[in-house]
């Protein structure tokens, strides 16, 4: 039995210690917002925060998360500036990668209040989007940081 803290709640799982956190979340805790895309840490769809840092849950054995604090897409408040910016910019298309994108963006804004385009490239290039929503993601991050207005123009 492994105990972990997900979105502030204590949870337990009987999954074997080598089971990636992704599959514990999805198949055991039935929290399917975190997505499977590649299983090798190549696409970022499974991104969650572990003690505040963005990590690929598909390559993180649950045994390594014992006692740590996990935040998933379900744990980001609806009013969070990143989610609000995502809505304002109509970022989502198929939407499958977006929970991972949002978690990477939340992590970026936790450490960098006004990220530059180069900061965004660095922080977000591990998250693939087959629908090609990158331009809108970039704008949404600038909006969430207050660097741009919701209509995409630069703030005076």
């Amino acid at each position, binding site marked *: 039995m492994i105990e972990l803290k997900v979105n502030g709640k204590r949870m337990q799982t009987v999954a074997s210690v080598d089971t990636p956190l992704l599959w514990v979340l999805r198949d055991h805790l039935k929290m399917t917002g975190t997505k*499977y*895309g*590649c299983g090798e840490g190549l*696409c970022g769809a499974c991104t969650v925060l572990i003690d505040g840092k963005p990590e690929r849950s598909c390559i993180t054995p649950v045994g390594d998360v014992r006692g740590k604090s996990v935040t998933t897409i379900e744990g980001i408040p609806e009013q969070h500036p990143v989610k609000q910016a995502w809505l304002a910019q109509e970022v*989502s*298309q198929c*939407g499958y990668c977006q929970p991972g994108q949002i978690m990477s963006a939340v992590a970026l804004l936790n450490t960098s209040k006004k990220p530059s385009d180069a900061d965004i*490239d660095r922080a977000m290039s591990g998250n693939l989007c*087959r629908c090609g*929503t990158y331009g809108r993601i970039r704008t949404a991050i600038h909006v969430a940081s207050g660097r741009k207005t919701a209509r995409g123009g630069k703030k005076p």
Partner: protein
Amino acid sequence: MSKSKDLTRRQFIKTGALLGGGLVVACHLPFGRRNAQAAQQGEFAPNAFLRISQDESITVIVNKSEMGQGIYTSLPMLVAEELCCDWKKVRFLPSPVAPEYNHTQFGPIMVTGGSSSVRSEWSRLSLAGAAAREMLITAAAQTWNIAPASCKAENGFVVSPSGAKLSFGKLADKAAMLPVPKDPQLKAGKKNLLGTPAKRLDSPAKINGTAIFGIDVQEPGMLTAVIARPPVFGGKVVSFNADKAKAIPGVRSVVAIEAGVVVAADDFWQAQKARKLLSITWDEGVWSSLSTPAMHEQYARLAETPGLVARTEGDAAAHLDNNPEKIEAVFEMPYLAHAAMEPLNCFVALKKDSGLIRTGSQFQTVDRAAAARVAGLQPEQIVFETTFLGGGFGRRGNPASDFVIEAVQAAKALGRPVKVVYTREDDMKSGYYRPMWYNRVEAAVDKKGFPLAWRHRVVGQSIIAGTAFEPVLVKNGIDHTSVEGASDTPYSIPNLQVELHSTANGVPVLWWRSVGHSHTAFVMESFMDELAHKAGLDPYRYRCALLAKHPRNLKVLQTAAEKAGWGKPLPKGRARGIAVHECFGSYVAQVAEVSLGKSGTVKVHRVVCAVDCGRTVNPDTIKAQMESGIIFGLSAALYGAITFKIGRVEQGNFDSYPLVRMSAAPRIEVHIIDSNEEPGGVGEPGVPPIAPAVANALFALNGARVRTLPMTPERVRSALKKA
């Protein structure tokens, strides 16, 4: 050109007849039987597409799959415009599989594809909204005992001449008792909702993790399975040993089915861990020596010989054969995987006389029929629920129903409800690719350098051959989807011949976002560029001259050029390339601005796109689809290739099949042409122009002409040496 379009339209109608009898034409069955989707008590359900509830909520039943294109918003907008309801009250509900929800043009099947959803539903859904509006108005007029014609509907209310108001919710019960108007009248005058960037109805669920994709389906008692499939297409299981696999805790069953060996467990991780421990003896079948270089040689040889004629105008041979001045080029494009972010999956539960399937499908009727055959049920005994699709791009609309059939086989063999999940590698290696293409083009030009004769030989596999569509979509051996975009080119070329060699080599192929246009546009637009440069003419003006009789092509070309600043100076080391292409009823031109890294890496900085897709529903969705098509096409132009070695697919995950990432994504500007023309598609037309626009920009930059995709650094360096 108009000839071939008419032909296509006729073919679709005939397809309908072929696939099950009974033509389905929009005007014959405008909006379905009343209550086809059973309404809740206290709801007004005037037709199969709409429910109005006493709580004022408006539910639009959507018969198209949401795979990113925003159709769960666009189709409700069509209904809401005519209904005159409050858009904030509108909800969507995916439709079940029923004849009412069949495609209005593609025959009696429920299908999402061909960039056809808005085009094919515009009329039917407008009428569905108008009919309900008329019934609500009549209900209110009867309440007030005044003439219906004196009342109007607006923003969810019926309003009397004196200003009295009754809400749609309050009128729902009464309206439900009225006869459905036979000939509802569409609103005259200005549109309120159409043409506005209404917010997507599916966005909230997609940012909080509640949107359910096929892979998210959870049912009590369900097992999760992975399948060990043959390493070579057409292979079969001879024998297997599962002793070690079964020792993994949580593994419930290991069984062989036609598709391979199924490993079913309590969760995905256990199943895929156990699969690695299987020992399987395969009969690899006849394709175990398949290799990309050998295919390339075969295709190149074929391209030297005449193919079946897909289009002929004038006498191209007379100008080209034995003409030492002719200009020749070969363009090659590899197999491509759809690589949707959500790997394939399918949930199936079977009982003695019923079944339940939940998955993301673009081809529900076909998938359900295939499932029924395998399960030994009637199609109507199977409930087929469409989830969100984590990308489609054609892969989930397979005439062979591959991922559905094997899940039904698995559920049958296991005797338990099961969700079959593909790993990324399974998804990449299991086939159904955009075909590999080899194109040989020759041209002779007049004194000014404009094409006098043009011969294009296409070599590659037919997507349609062997499917139920073959009898109508393959004519005299020509699969139209192999040559579309070339055989129906709008360019003015007096002597034109397009020929086709259809190959057969065991690789499962399928439509891939923009289908044939994904390769023909690269050939047409690259070679046109070459001819322009050979003539010493500006490639933009050269195209304009050849499209003089095609105002819509011309307009997008001019708009893209103007907005991109065509001809204006750029920073050192950058250049622009242009391309224009017409498909799925829409016209798109793109200007790409590129630079080249030292190692030969192409960097695309900016893309300016102009689109004419006729009348618009939601301009923001159109912009999003253009942005999407450009990035999708750019991944193929720069990185995408599926290759074979000893029958095996060499790629497996995103390291070997890379996609454009944030750092490589260009800035994109989209300009929509104001138009009152018939609506065109938007899901696919953004894809074809980007690869040639980038290749043409590269040529403008340094004279390197890359004619083989993807434009890897090696290919760019080699083209530079020849420049």
